[in-house]
């Protein structure tokens, strides 16, 4: 199955979806590469500035069971905390594609957000330093505990514990203050497939 070239959202947004998928997997949800591709495609077919549509688009593609829904919604609320970030992602994409974003998609703070969210110019060779940073800021214990969790086998108490862990995690978007490299908003588009494959190679997650 070939993925039609997504118009908007192939870069920053795709990267965020990738990180979000990692978060879901840490929480024990079985999100696979095909789900990420579907989620990325879905994101190009909705109004990116509409948080509710965004949540549903990711949910419909990344989870496949009712039992996973609550955990998903919690993770979504944490990860996509600021709807402006999502709007900014769309704006960045449009800028990168050489189009001027509509004014309402580029609020005054968007430059800061743009810098915060733009993916650093990609280095061809792994290990991807960004992924390492993310893993470093996660508290090690929470990270390990969540990675060992098998959601299917969890009881109500364990699920509650998992949710608590999710709340404690320092998430990728929080990295904007710690990242030192200069982001380049006009940098090359991220090839989602390549990024996913790369992340699979050394992420060791499914």
């Amino acid at each position, binding site marked *: 199955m070939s993925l039609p070239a997504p118009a908007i959202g192939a870069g920053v947004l795709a990267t965020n979806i990738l990180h979000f998928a990692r978060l879901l997997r840490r929480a024990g949800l079985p999100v696979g590469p095909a789900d990420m591709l579907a989620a990325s495609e879905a994101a190009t077919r909705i109004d990116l500035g509409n948080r509710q*549509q965004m949540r549903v688009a990711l949910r419909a593609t990344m989870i496949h069971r009712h039992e996973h829904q609550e955990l998903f919604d919690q993770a979504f609320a944490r990860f996509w905390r600021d709807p402006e970030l999502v709007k900014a992602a769309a704006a960045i994409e449009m800028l990168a594609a050489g189009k001027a974003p509509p004014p309402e998609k580029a609020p005054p703070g968007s430059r800061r957000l743009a810098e915060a969210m733009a993916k650093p110019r990609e280095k061809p060779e792994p290990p991807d330093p960004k992924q390492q940073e993310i893993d470093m800021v996660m508290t090690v214990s929470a990270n390990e505990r969540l990675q060992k969790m098998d959601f299917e086998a969890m009881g109500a108490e364990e699920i509650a514990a998992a949710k608590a862990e999710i709340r404690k995690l320092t998430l990728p978007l929080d990295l904007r203050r710690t990242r030192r490299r200069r982001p380049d908003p006009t940098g090359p588009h991220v090839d989602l497939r390549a990024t996913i494959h790369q992340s699979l190679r050394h992420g060791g997650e499914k």
Partner: protein
Amino acid sequence: MSLPASVAETAALLEAGGYVADTALATTVHLALAMSRPLFLEGEPGTGKTEIAKVLAAGLGRRLVRLQCYDGLDLAAAAYEWDHARQLMAIRIAEASGAADRTALSSDIYGRAFLKARPLLSAIDPDLPPAVLLIDELDRADEPFEAFLLELLADFQLTVPEYGTIHAATPPVVVLTSNRTREVHDAIRRRCLYHWVDYPSAARERQILARKAPNVAETLSRQIVDFVQRLRKEDLFKLPGVAETIDWASALTHLDQHELTPESVDETLGVLLKYQDDIAKIRGAEAARLMASA
């Protein structure tokens, strides 16, 4: 007819078909159409899962092809069957007329004309207009059937060993539903966009009533919905779905009731609850309590 271009257009299409969808459902339906992915709807009985497929077919101007699943559903009933009687006839005729070319004959009798299409084949038949395929209550079919469905859901094609592979000219819009009497396999789930159909909120249920039972008075509608919503919090064998709410409203209106009274509730409870134990539990004091806690 072309597919709706946005979530808003999808919502309008559902609305025009008398379907009251929340944003989440409209968004998921839009994505299923836009991405050519099957839509997998799970949820409580009577919450409008089957209805979605009907409304989509009507709204898109497509034919509705429905496969109702049941225990023991097999390929012959779900996909296709060779018309053995006609095949036999063709053989007899060929033999009688002395045409003894066996290989030509066998390729003849495994031709399209001898293939009887059941819902799954019909839905992807390139010679027929585009379809909405409803695979209803998949949880009732047995598991081996799901394995067979995979090819169809992945590529909208179906392979008949004696004949070849049949591709849809236009991918069908596919809606699968389940009441979760059994867990549908992950392989199927992963190919679909997933949506859990919950009971509607009170406001939405009133809207549904206004669409489906327009003769019901405003006050009665509000009381009915409040009562049903509270009933759904009770520990019952089978909770009332939207279908029951609509039936109950119609029944009460038919009996010239303009407001809920303990008497009218007791008399008509059988429309709302399907099990004697449930009726016995709610009738009388409990019903009165539910009405009072408004």
